């Protein structure tokens, strides 16, 4: 396990070096994403300027929601940059490289690419957390924990949906759509959703666990919610590994020419 963590560390260092080969592109994408998130955030600031509360969420919860969600998303897709690309890699037969080497395929595959623009999300998340005012030690520890768990759920969700390409042939657009749906629903106060939608957001599209539940943990220091979040994250890992392993037997490779960026 320790060796695998060291290996992932090596991949991340290599990715950083690779990304820095093009400095202008690297920096502009980061700045662009910070501005993009900022605009979305301003919308909520204007909203709460007129209304005090929406379904139990005040401006403090919105700060926390943005902090957890953007930092988790940033962490997930900066370091596990291939998580959202799994469907394309399968469909184009680009798993050969990972399968020919003596490392577990999933971590090797997922951490072999680093996102650039998502570093902007990551930075934005940290700044947003500074605005929450929850800067005591317990809150910081809880914030870091729930953010890491939410990042794990982002990765497992993206990989699981992407791995459907083993069965469907191509699931790139499905991955993009579902990730977008997860993100969109995660960015709203959870109290807005009722009935079937609420059920879906707690199961198939686990938006509650990347937004509302982590916010509840940090805001209320809720241990029960933290245990639930950890359980869901663990379950999502099991589902991801199961679907990927099952699919790998159906992998058909391909003759596409590919390169390691």
């Amino acid at each position, binding site marked *: 396990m320790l*060796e695998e963590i*060291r*290996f992932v560390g*090596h*991949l991340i260092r*290599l990715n950083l*070096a*690779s990304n820095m*080969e*093009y400095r202008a592109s690297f920096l502009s994408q980061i700045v662009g994403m910070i501005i993009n998130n900022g605009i979305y955030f301003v919308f909520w600031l204007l909203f709460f300027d007129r209304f005090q509360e929406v379904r139990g969420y005040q401006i403090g919860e919105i700060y926390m929601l943005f902090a957890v969600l953007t930092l988790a998303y940033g962490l997930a897709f900066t370091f596990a940059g291939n998580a959202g690309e799994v469907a394309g890699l399968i469909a184009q037969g*680009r*798993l*050969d*490289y990972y*399968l*020919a*080497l*003596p*490392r*577990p395929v999933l971590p090797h595959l997922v951490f072999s690419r680093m996102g650039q623009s998502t570093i902007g999300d990551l930075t934005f998340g940290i700044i947003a957390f500074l605005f929450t005012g929850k800067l005591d030690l317990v809150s910081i520890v809880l914030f870091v924990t729930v953010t890491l768990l939410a990042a794990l759920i982002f990765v497992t969700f993206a990989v699981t949906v992407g791995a459907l390409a083993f069965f469907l*042939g191509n699931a790139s657009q499905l991955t993009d759509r579902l990730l977008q749906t997860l993100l969109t629903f995660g960015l709203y106060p959870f109290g807005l959703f009722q009935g079937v939608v609420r059920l879906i957001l707690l199961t198939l599209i686990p938006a509650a666990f990347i937004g509302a539940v982590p916010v509840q943990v940090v805001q209320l220091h809720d241990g029960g919610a933290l245990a639930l979040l950890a359980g869901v994250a663990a379950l999502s890992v099991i589902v991801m590994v199961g679907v990927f392993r099952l699919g790998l*037997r159906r*992998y*058909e*490779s391909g*003759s596409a*020419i*590919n*390169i*390691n*960026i």
Partner: protein
Amino acid sequence: MASIVLKDLRKAFQVKRKAAGLGGSLASLGRPRYETVEAVRGISLEMESGELLAFIGPNGAGKSTTIKMLTGILHPTSGEAQVLGFVPWKQRRELAYHIGSVFGQKPQLWYHLPPIDTFDLFAHIYELDRKTYERRRDFLVEAFDIRDLLEVPVRKLSLGQRMRCEIAASLLHHPRIVFLDEPTIGLDVVAKQQLRDTIKQLHAEEQTTIFLTSHDAGDIESLCERVVVINHGQVIFDDAVKVLKRRYLRRKVIEVRFAEPTNGHLDLAGVSVIKLGRYGAKLELDTSSRPIETVIQDLMAGHSIVDINVMDPPMEEIIRAIYQRDSAFEPVAEGA
């Protein structure tokens, strides 16, 4: 001792078929039509340790599919395989520590980084200790003559330079078997020969088992002792390279360009003139009737030559000859 044993190995794919155009796409959307394509149809063979085997065939013959099953990348539809005692698709990771692979069209080197960074990563992947890795790396750097390329981003390397680095990377962990899938694809004549010489030298020095696929007959002639030819997923020839050469690689085509115009005649014993222009000619020779060196000597003695190119018959022609044994390739009795 056998390194590789294959018994009736088969692989079939489901391939979607659709008629041309939008109408075909709409019909396919409602009722998709699939066809089973058998890429590998019952291959059986054994390969000894230290052997250098050429596994050749035209595009789509099933070469890469076979290699992918032998390296554990693909699961077969049926049949058995053992590589160094491992079942590749069941013990992929254990096997991967002992084999190296180079896929000509699927580079392993990180594109934006210099080869040395991928070498370091591979040392980590194969869990090599620093000293062993550095000693091995330095040896391969000399063998492949890549010292000046180590710190140049891969995107700036020529295809030949990159392929030398690719093969060096695949040998870092001292594999017992190396699978080379089309390593000379796209290379010019000089780069091809340089690569062949290095592979040959390493094989002689380290006795590594090499499983080479190619559709370039020149690779097989220069490198291998044994050749297995496959077509449509089946073995159609399995024998020594010298047998293949004697039977099917006797014909050479020589393209020559002259510095001065010819007088319209070119008379060389044992050579057929396919085409003759004022400044060039295309000739055909059966090397069993006359060695190629003597033809080139005669050409150079009689003309001022600007360029000369000797070519093997294309793989498709060899396959056809194996099937048909046509008059041009009539098999010669052993020992003839």
